[in-house]
């Protein structure tokens, strides 16, 4: 027979709060931990080439050609061109998070010509 204490409103309430706090912490941790600085991507382009990454920064230049939305994101460590196959580019000056596949198109020495193929956006 279960203990009456664990069905008490106080216990249930604290359990819900605990789970919510844990979920919140995990979301926060996941959000922070998975954002990769653009400078890190560009300096280690072969390591990240073809991998899904998340970046976050300011939209510096927004343009769409060839039926695609292309824009540049700067996060203070570097600038990366984002290619969107499905969405219009966000307005210049806005802050945006982008999840996508990092593609190093050309690497010469320690420098890379690279783009991020956008999969989704986050705030």
């Amino acid at each position: 027979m279960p203990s009456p204490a664990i069905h008490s409103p106080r216990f249930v309430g604290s359990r819900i709060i605990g789970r919510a706090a844990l979920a919140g912490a995990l979301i926060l941790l996941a959000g922070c931990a998975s954002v990769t600085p653009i400078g890190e991507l560009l300096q280690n382009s072969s390591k990240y080439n073809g991998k899904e990454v998340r970046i976050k920064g300011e939209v510096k230049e927004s343009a769409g050609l060839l039926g695609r939305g292309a824009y540049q994101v700067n996060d203070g460590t570097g600038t990366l061109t984002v290619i969107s196959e499905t969405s219009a580019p966000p307005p210049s000056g806005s802050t945006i998070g982008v999840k996508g596949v990092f593609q190093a198109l050309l690497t010469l020495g320690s420098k890379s010509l690279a783009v991020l193929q956008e999969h989704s956006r986050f705030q």
Partner: protein
Amino acid sequence: MTSPVELPSGIVRIAPFTAFVQRFEDLLASSTRLVLYFIHSRRWRENHDAAIKTFLAREGTTLEVFLPDLENHELMYSLGKHFDDGPQIPGLITDAYRYFARLAREYKQPADIWLFGTYPTFSFYRFDDRAILALYSNTAAKKDLPAFEVTTDSALGRFVDADIEDLKQECRQRTPDDLEIVIDNALHG
């Protein structure tokens, strides 16, 4: 290759691009003007390197070149998607930049390079009174590309000439010496 019979369109020859090797040699030997528009055309540059240099060494010849803008990352991405050698294309374009920069150092030509940022629909090689146009495929699958030799005073020839003038308005103009700066600007890190 079909026999050269001039049609009202100005087309005098239709053949796979690879069948024009000797024709390019003849045109390079007999022409004074050459305007090039292509993505990198590595094979063409390799096949005709000696003839190109002989052409440039002849007095009175001019060379103008249109190449993709390496700083346009969206164009680089799109080109990479549409060719079977896609991942190599930015590197091959860099190689083309350096090839023409070397020619400019040795022969003072081309004096300027135009960098285009729109997706190319065909390539062309414009000589004095003939031009050779080669189609690009709409898919990434490798295939023989058809090419046409046209007279420059025909409808197709005038179309190419109009394109050249329009491209000079739309493209970024750089000296061959500036191409290393373009390469450097295109790269981050």
